[in-house]
C-alpha cells in the first residue's frame, strides 16, 4: 500500500496503462504542462507529444479526436478540463461516440475514456460547477463512472481504459487533494460494483463522487450518536449496482440517496424508482433524496452554502428517517 492523493493516483493510473498498451494516448488542453490540475504532470516527457496531445480549445474536435482515434484502432483518453465544457461537444458525445457501434451494425468499437472533472469548488459559479451525470446515464451506449477515493479513481480509470465501450469518467474535482491508500501492483476496480463504505442496519445511504466524502463525515457523526448507517459509494453510475442497493435497502428498510446534482430528474430519482419497483412491503420509511435545488450554482459564499448539500443536511435527513 502507498498513500497518494486522487491526482497522483489518476496520473499513475494513466501512465501505467500507457506503458502497458502503446495504443493508449491522451488528448486535451494544456496536457503539455500537466493539464489544468496536474493530473498529466510530466507524462509528455515519458510519452512524447504524439501520445500526450496538447490541443487547442476545441471541445468538439477533442472529443472527435477520441472517436476518430478509436475508429482507427487506438484507445484514446479524452480530457474535457471541466465537465461543463463537454457541453460544447455534446453532439460528438451523444450523437457520435455513444451510437457509432450500434448504428454501424457493430463494425465500430469505441474504446474511448472521456474524463470530466466535475462539481462545485469554492467560487466556481454557474458554468464551472454543474453535475450532469444523469444526462449521460440516460444515453444508451455509454458507461458512466464517478468514483471518489484515490484507489477507486485509479482502479476505475484503468478499467475504463481497458473497456471496449465508451466511458464517461467523472472525476471528483473538489477532492483532488484528498489522500487514500492505493494497493500495489495492477490495481483495477471492476465496473458496475458499488463500494460498501460501512455496513449498518438502520438506514442505507447511497452516494457517489465528491459527495461521498461529505456523506462519509455525516455517516461518522451519525454513527457516533448511535445510528447504524450503511453507506454505499456507487462508483459506477451506469451500470449501477442495483443488487447491492436493493439488498441493503431490504436489510435496513430505509433509503437516502445523496447527490450534488440538481435533485429533479437526478440519478437519485432512478434509484428510488428502482427500489420502489422492487422492494415490496419491506420499507420502514418512504425513500428520500437529497440533491441541489433546481437553480444554477451561485457564486457568493453564503449563496453557495445555501445551495449545496451539506454534511448537516445529510445528518438531519438521516435523523428524521430513523426517528420513531
Amino acid at each position, binding site marked *: 500500500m502507498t498513500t497518494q492523493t486522487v491526482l497522483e493516483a489518476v496520473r499513475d493510473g494513466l501512465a501505467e496503462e500507457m506503458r502497458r498498451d502503446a495504443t493508449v494516448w491522451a488528448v486535451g488542453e494544456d496536457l503539455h504542462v500537466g493539464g489544468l490540475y496536474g493530473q498529466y504532470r510530466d507524462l509528455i516527457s515519458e510519452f512524447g507529444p504524439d501520445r500526450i496531445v496538447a490541443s487547442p480549445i*476545441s471541445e468538439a474536435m477533442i472529443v472527435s479526436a477520441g472517436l476518430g482515434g478509436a475508429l*482507427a*484502432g487506438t484507445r484514446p483518453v479524452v480530457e474535457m478540463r471541466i465537465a461543463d465544457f463537454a457541453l460544447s461537444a455534446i453532439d460528438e458525445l451523444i450523437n*457520435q461516440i455513444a451510437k457509432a457501434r*450500434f448504428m454501424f451494425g457493430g463494425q465500430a468499437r469505441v474504446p474511448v475514456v472521456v474524463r470530466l472533472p466535475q462539481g462545485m469548488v469554492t467560487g466556481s459559479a454557474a458554468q464551472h460547477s454543474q453535475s450532469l451525470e444523469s444526462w449521460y446515464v440516460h444515453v444508451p451506449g455509454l458507461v458512466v463512472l464517478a468514483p471518489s477515493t484515490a484507489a477507486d479513481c485509479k482502479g476505475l480509470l484503468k478499467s475504463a481504459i481497458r*473497456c471496449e465501450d465508451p466511458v464517461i469518467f467523472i472525476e471528483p474535482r473538489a477532492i483532488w487533494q484528498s489522500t487514500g491508500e492505493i494497493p500495489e501492483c495492477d490495481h483495477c476496480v471492476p465496473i458496475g460494483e458499488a463500494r460498501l463504505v460501512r455496513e449498518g442496519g438502520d438506514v442505507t445511504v447511497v452516494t457517489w463522487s465528491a459527495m461521498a466524502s461529505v456523506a462519509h463525515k455525516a455517516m461518522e457523526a451519525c454513527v457516533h450518536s448511535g445510528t447504524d448507517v450503511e453507506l454505499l459509494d456507487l462508483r459506477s453510475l451506469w451500470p449501477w449496482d442495483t443488487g447491492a442497493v436493493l439488498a441493503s435497502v431490504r436489510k435496513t428498510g430505509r433509503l437516502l440517496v445523496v447527490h450534488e446534482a440538481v435533485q429533479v430528474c437526478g440519478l437519485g430519482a432512478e434509484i428510488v424508482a428502482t427500489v420502489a419497483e422492487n422492494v415490496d412491503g419491506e420499507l420502514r420509511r418512504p425513500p428520500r433524496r437529497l440533491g441541489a435545488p433546481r437553480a444554477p450554482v451561485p457564486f457568493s459564499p453564503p449563496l453557495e452554502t445555501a445551495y449545496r448539500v451539506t454534511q448537516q443536511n445529510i445528518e438531519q435527513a438521516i435523523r428524521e428517517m430513523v426517528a420513531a
Partner: protein
Amino acid sequence: MTAIGQNERIRALALLRTMLRIRRFEEVAEIAQRAGEIPGTLHLSIGQEAVAAGVCSALERTDLITSTHRGHGHSIAKGASLVAMMAELFGRASGTCKGKGGSMHIADFSVGMLGANGVVGGGLGIAVGAAQGLRVRGSNAITACFFGDGAVNRGPFLESLNWAATFRLPVLFVCEDNGFAAFTETARVTAGAGPAARAEALDIQNVVVDGNDVIAVADAASAMVERLRRKAGPAFIHAQTYRLRGHTIADQGAYRDAETHSRQELRDPILLMRQRLTDWNLSEDMQKLQLQVEDDISAALAGARAAVFPAPESALAEVQDIGAPA
C-alpha cells in the same frame, strides 16, 4: 477524335464506371423508396458523382474516409459492396450495418469507409481524429473527409481544419459544394470568398475544382494525396457541383432557380464524361460498361428484396458490452 493512351483510357472508363454505379444505385433506390420498399427518406447525390468518384480514385483501400448524410456515392466509390449497401437501405440483416443504420448511417469499415453521418459536419472531426489515431499507430494511411457547403458554417469545420493544420495531419478535406444547405442556397447565408478562402486563411493547401469534371477532380485529388503522403500537412479541395435532386426524396426543390437548374442539367457529370469518351472513340467500351453496371445494380436490388429482416432481438444488440440493455 483525340488519341489517348491505354492508361488514360482505363482510368477514364474506371471513373465513368464508378459514377454510373452511383447514379444507377441511387436511381433504383429512389424508385424503391417511392414504391415503399425502402423505409425512411433518402438523400441522393445525383449530379454530384464526379466528386466521390474522382477523390476516391486517388485513395488506397487502406486509406480512411468519412462521409455525409448524402453518402451513397462516397461508399460506392471507396469500394463498398452494392449488394450489402442496397440491403442496408432496405433494412435487411445482410446490410452493411445489419439494418441498424440505413441510408444515413451507411458504413463499410472493411474498405475504410467510417460512416455516413446524420449531422451536418459530423464527419470532419472524426476524419481528423482518425488521422491522429493512425499517427499513434505509426500508419502511413491518410484520411479524406467529404462534407457539404452547408458544413462550412458549423463550428466543427473551423475546429477540424485548425487542428489538422496545427498537427500537420494527412487529411484531405473535400468540400462537396452542391449549392444548397438543405432548402437554402448556401451563398445566401455564407459570408466571404468561399470555402477555399477559409482553408487559405489557415495556410492549408487548397484548390477549387469543377466538381462535375471527374477527371479534373481526380487530378486535383491525386496531386493533393501525393502531398499528404509526403507528410506535407492537410489539403483542401473545393469541388463545385450541383444537386440535381431535392434535399430529400420528398423535396421537389421549389426554391431552386429554374434557369440555373436547366443549365446545370446540361452539366451532368456523367453526360460530360460520356461526351468526352465519345470524342475519344470509346462508345463501345461505354456500352459494355453500362451493361455490367446494370447487371450489378439488378443483382443488388434482387439481393436486397430477397434478404431477410433482422431478428427483433437484434434491436438491443451491439449497444454496449457493460450495462447492455436488458
